């Protein structure tokens, strides 16, 4: 218990910003006699170098002393006081900056008496918190300098190639027999206009010339995944053998599947109605017949059933339209669309170029989709032109249905194995906008079309970015669990279970947003156990524990109780 920790208080006048409103003499009197307070000083500006030295010099034994500073808010100067003290060897955990400026003197400038009372309360609360603070448990983690990459499409290959060049050993697992993912199905890649072999060849060479730097397991099947950032254990089967590997980080690059039109626009019933991939097959085989081609966009997507935009289909159709023109410059090519999604400079230019080459665009409305006409073969497409409000009939030899990407059927299973969340469409969820590849599980990154449909160029970029994030995690050597994160320098506090008191009810397991709590057998009974690497110190578990056996040592129920008491001590 930390009750015997002696507290040294410092009050900051802030050159009058605090002392002008708050009667610091009265505050000092009230605090000096407060239990646990060993000394109290009033200074002019605790945040400036001159006072900082005094402050540090009063702390003889940093482990046994708590500092309570009555100063400004953490976000004003408090942060820097704590950082500066840390440089002088005083752990930020032992420094409580109590905000009596932004949170008191500045907002109660018309009420000096009340502000003084409040300042006393706030400082007593700070003292209570420091007195009842306990040092959190810590584990040291030495991340395994190997990375698991799941999926050998453009995202996975670029991640693997990048990591191996950084000297990191990579395990590249893929369900397919040969690497390349969806790119293998197409003849040329947009907007770069190269063949799929050319597109990834350099990266593939890097991988396969890496002298064992990359272990590639084609046609493999994932069995299980355990562990947390820095040390995951993954087992899978490849051929007849089962493998179990240890890695420091995981990159999920499983991609997406191409949706089949499911009878839409008479696909399957009418000769000449193709999907984009079926058209690619014809390109690859060099057998394209007919020179009147109509592309229909948003097939089976941006509708009630799949209310999302798959982002890549417009560019794919533009590419295919141009390829038709490559084969026959006299071809008549129409793209029936609902919006052409070509954001940015490169894609917009791609769109302009297609227009310049003679591809014609026609906008249709969602509730008046085109109708494909013909008896055995496609004859024409009837469409309501949303821009001119006219019905048009376009003669066609081929109708190409541009279908979206959708999550793989086993996306749910992989999500479960790696603790990923999925969005309403089934794609993997990531953290905030500023952390677009990180998932709720530290050390697991998602890139490529598994998180959202992307073109090859974005998949490659995301693969590289994911490689960077993985490298950040595993390249730093041994780290305390509280610092093992790619999105912040330090976690707040890590939860601790009193195993004697724990009844094994499992409430904490159910609520933990990081899957850090689990029930394990301890001396014959199930007890909650906290994975300190996963724990982020939010305190969700604390609030659902029926008997207080799980606590944040830095912010225990007892500390909060004492703070509440401190509020009520005066004037009641």
């Amino acid at each position, binding site marked *: 218990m930390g009750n015997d920790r002696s507290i040294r208080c410092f009050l900051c006048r802030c050159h009058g910003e605090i002392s002008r409103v708050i009667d610091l003499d009265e505050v000092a009197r009230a605090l000096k006699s407060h239990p646990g307070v060993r000394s109290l000083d009033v200074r002019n500006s605790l945040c400036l170098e001159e006072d900082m030295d005094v402050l540090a010099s009063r702390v003889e034994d940093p482990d046994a002393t708590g500092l309570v500073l009555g100063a400004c808010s953490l976000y004003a100067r408090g942060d820097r006081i704590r950082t500066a003290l840390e440089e002088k060897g005083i752990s930020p955990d032992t420094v409580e900056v109590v905000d009596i400026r*932004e949170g*008191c003197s500045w*907002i109660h400038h018309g009420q000096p008496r009340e502000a003084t009372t409040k300042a006393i309360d706030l400082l007593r609360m700070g003292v209570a918190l420091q007195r009842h603070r306990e040092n959190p448990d810590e584990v040291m983690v030495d991340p395994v300098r190997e990375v698991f990459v799941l999926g050998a499409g453009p995202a996975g290959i670029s991640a693997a190639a990048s990591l191996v060049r950084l000297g990191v050993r990579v395990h590249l697992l893929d369900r397919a027999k040969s690497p390349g993912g969806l790119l293998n199905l197409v003849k040329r890649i947009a907007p770069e206009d190269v063949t799929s072999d050319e597109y990834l060849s350099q990266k593939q060479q890097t991988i396969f010339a890496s002298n064992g730097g990359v272990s590639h397991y084609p046609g493999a099947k994932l069995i299980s995944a355990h562990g947390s950032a820095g040390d995951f254990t993954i087992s899978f089967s490849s051929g007849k053998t089962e493998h179990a590997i240890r890695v420091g980080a995981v990159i999920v690059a499983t991609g997406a599947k191409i949706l089949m039109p499911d009878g839409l626009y008479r696909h399957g019933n009418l000769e000449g109605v193709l999907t984009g991939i079926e058209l690619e097959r014809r390109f690859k085989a060099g057998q394209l017949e007919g020179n009147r081609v109509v592309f229909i966009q948003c097939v089976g997507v941006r509708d009630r059933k799949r209310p999302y935009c798959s982002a890549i289909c417009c560019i794919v159709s533009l590419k295919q339209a141009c390829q038709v023109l490559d084969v026959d410059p006299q071809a008549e090519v129409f793209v029936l669309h609902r919006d052409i999604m070509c954001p940015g400079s490169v894609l917009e230019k791609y769109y302009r170029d297609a227009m310049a080459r003679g591809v014609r665009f026609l906008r249709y409305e969602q509730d008046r989709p085109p109708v494909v006409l013909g008896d055995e073969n496609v004859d024409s497409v009837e469409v309501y032109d949303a821009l001119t409000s006219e019905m048009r009939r376009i003669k066609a030899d081929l109708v190409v249905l541009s279908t979206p990407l959708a999550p793989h059927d086993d996306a749910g299973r992989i999500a479960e194995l790696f603790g990923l969340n999925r969005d309403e469409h089934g794609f993997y969820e990531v953290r*905030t906008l500023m952390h677009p590849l990180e998932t709720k599980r530290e050390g697991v990154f998602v890139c490529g079309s598994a998180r959202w449909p992307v073109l090859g160029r974005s998949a490659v970029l995301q693969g590289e970015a994911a490689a960077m994030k993985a490298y950040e995690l595993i390249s730093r050597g041994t780290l305390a669990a509280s610092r093992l994160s790619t999105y912040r320098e330090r976690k707040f506090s890590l939860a601790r279970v009193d195993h004697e008191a724990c009844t094994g009810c499992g409430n904490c397991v159910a609520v933990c947003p990081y899957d850090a709590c689990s029930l394990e057998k301890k001396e014959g009974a199930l007890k909650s156990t906290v994975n300190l690497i996963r724990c982020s110190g*939010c*305190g969700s578990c604390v609030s*659902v524990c029926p008997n*207080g056996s799980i606590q944040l040592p830095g912010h225990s129920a007892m500390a909060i109780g004492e703070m509440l008491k401190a509020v009520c001590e005066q004037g009641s």
Partner: protein
Amino acid sequence: MTDRTEDSGNIQVVLEGAGRKIVVFACTWCALIGADGAGKKRISLPATFRVIPVECISRVEADAVIRAFTSGIDGVAVMGCHLGGCRHNGANLRSARKLELLKPLLDTVGIDSRRLFTSYGTAHEYHQFAQAIESFCSQIGEMPPVSAWSRSFVRAMSARGENE
């Protein structure tokens, strides 16, 4: 945008209900930043509230709220991130639901559930923080203190009440 910040407008002294005490659990990622902003703007606020910073409002257990009332506090505000904008994978959502469940419970023991105030998302909107605090403080100021009966009742109810 050059403002001189001395928000000289509403300097008002809240005298009625001055003895009441209000505790505000503020999430460090959002509400606390709003509080900081209100301070920087020197917005004049009633002096009856005390802020307890928490990493996430999901840390605030029903018991902490109940203990606040048993300890002699008259109003509890829990202020976190925008629902859906939590730094801890949506932990605040669960917490929000839990606190809603607590409200009818408070009513049944004679603690007006309006004494438990929840608000989500004020980081960048310091004036919203100020408004929320101001209206909550004045609301509590208009109410009588929590009755001794209710306080003792919830004390008995609280599992961890006074047994340290």
